[in-house]
């Protein structure tokens, strides 16, 4: 297998024009990698910003409501559901920090419902069940 030391010898023997071409190639390659990383970070950043903006709006408008139907059909909550599986890590992070009424969204996004009937309405227990489900299934969503 080639090593950097092997290549160095060849690089140093390159004519100046060829050396500059090689150097430009490295520079362009690094630029593409950096831009891709920036794009990914930006996409993640945009996702995060949108999620938290919608979450804040949802919480502000529904904190005094008891109707699960009204709470979970709020436009901001529906907007979170519309973000799809990419939003699952954010929801799970929120649930791990503080139980909330995320179950409707989780069912809608994943198509799953690990909560048995006898546990319906027991918010803390439902939260734990979903967090356990996420631990076992997050790999299906590309999360390690």
């Amino acid at each position, binding site marked *: 297998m080639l090593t950097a030391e092997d290549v160095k010898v060849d690089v140093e023997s390159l004519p100046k024009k060829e050396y500059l071409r090689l150097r430009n190639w490295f520079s362009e390659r690094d630029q593409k990698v950096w831009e891709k990383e920036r794009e990914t970070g930006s996409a993640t950043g945009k996702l995060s910003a949108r999620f938290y903006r919608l979450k804040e709006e949802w919480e502000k408008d*529904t*904190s*005094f*409501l*008891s*109707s*699960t*139907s009204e*709470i*979970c059909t709020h436009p901001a909550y529906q907007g979170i559901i519309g973000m799809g599986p990419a939003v699952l890590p954010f929801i799970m992070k929120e649930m791990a920090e*503080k*139980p*909330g*009424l995320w*179950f*409707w969204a989780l*069912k809608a996004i994943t198509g799953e419902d690990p*909560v048995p*009937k006898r546990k*319906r*309405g*027991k*918010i*803390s227990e*439902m939260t734990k069940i979903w967090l356990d489900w996420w631990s076992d299934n997050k790999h299906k969503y590309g999360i390690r």
Partner: protein
Amino acid sequence: MIRIEAAFPNLRPSGYRVASPETVGYNCIAWAAGDTTRWWWPDSPESAYWPDGVQRSETSEAFVKAFETLSYTICDTPEYEEGFEKIAIYVNSNGKPTHAARQLPSGCWTSKLGQSYDIEHDLEGVSGTQYGNVGVIMKRPCKIQKGKSPPNVAIRRERGGKSSPDVAIRRERGEEIINPQA
């Protein structure tokens, strides 16, 4: 408290008191039912608790049936009646239930504001755009607790409500001692 008063403008003029920290563990229907372990609501995805055998429907009839499973029956007046505990179901302009409150032995009412605080308030204190108005009042006999005198008798007397005879006299007479639940 600014948020509460903005959402319920009748609270400040009629007086209220925040009685608990915020929690999502139970909602107003559960609190009125005396249950702090579950969120009660007849939602379609069935993520919340609803009494077995009662239709999962956001109608006054379904909510009345839900409280009937706890021995409540519809009554005419929200006025405090010794020996009974009462709940009030609030409905919006379409007649759809939005909230429930439970009466305290003092004659005041207690409500869980969704995912937020419990408060103690006047019956009309939480009426308005958020919850609508009182639609139904229900009552049930208080559970008997021997040896305890009714709390807040002085408050009820001051408010012109019925007062309870001295506990010792009632025991002597062989009368049941009824203590309204808090």
